[in-house]
């Protein structure tokens, strides 16, 4: 396995979508390739950082503000 292939199929590896043979090949590559170990670590950090950067918005209450509801209903009445 080359580094290019490692990076290309990285998400399939992380999501557990590889066959046992493919997974073993991935792990053999990781055991000998410092560059890919570093690439993977940075990739995993990126995924965590994205989650953390967007988490506040994701957990915001899903209720629409009353003034937005009223604005939309008023706009609808004007359009009808």
């Amino acid at each position, binding site marked *: 396995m080359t580094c290019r292939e490692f990076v290309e199929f990285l998400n399939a590896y992380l999501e557990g979508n590889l066959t046992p043979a493919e997974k073993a090949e991935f792990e053999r590559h990781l055991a000998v390739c410092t560059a890919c170990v570093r690439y993977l670590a940075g990739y995993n950090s*990126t995924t965590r950082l994205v989650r953390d950067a967007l988490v506040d918005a*994701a957990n915001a209450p899903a209720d629409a503000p009353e003034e937005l*509801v009223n604005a939309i209903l008023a706009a609808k009445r004007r359009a009808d």
Partner: protein
Amino acid sequence: MPYSPTAEELDLVERLKRGEADAFTTLVRDRAGALLRCARKLLGNEEDAREAVQDALLQASRNIDTFHCQCQLSTWLHKIAINAALMKRRARLSRPQVSIEDLLPRFQEDGHHAEIPAPWQEPVEAGMARAELQKLVRDAIDQLPDNYRTILILRELNEMDTEATAQVLSITPNAVKIRLHRARQALRTLLDSHFRADTSDLPRVR
């Protein structure tokens, strides 16, 4: 697998098609919040996000006859809201977008990394407070080409799985996975200069 709507959803859609005013009120009250949450994340601006949700719900009301309950009402609504939000965003963007290819890792002909990735240090070690870190990452997300940025954001919304994201963007679930992977790779490139550890005292790898 064909989608079968709930009786409640079918009823609401039928009432919307008949133009019942209280059906539209129900739609707005029940659905505007989730759409707003999504639009806020795509636009990062409250006023624009509210306008996008308003445009989307009015558009949904005008086009309800084209909705045949082949997917969840919420998926259809999200699709309209996301398109409304993206149109607003494109109208605001003045800078040219970078190409995703320029942000993906490069390899030598034999498949080795063209540049050996530097190890990353933890944000704490980089001396960054959480708010500063979140802003740094959000700014980097904003630099991604729209197609990739949208996927990254949608997949962090709890209610959107790969399948729903694919329906909303009219692409295959596999294309969602590929774009998400590329988005993360590109973001890794954009964040690299902020997190790479000082490697001067580390042994070189090949």
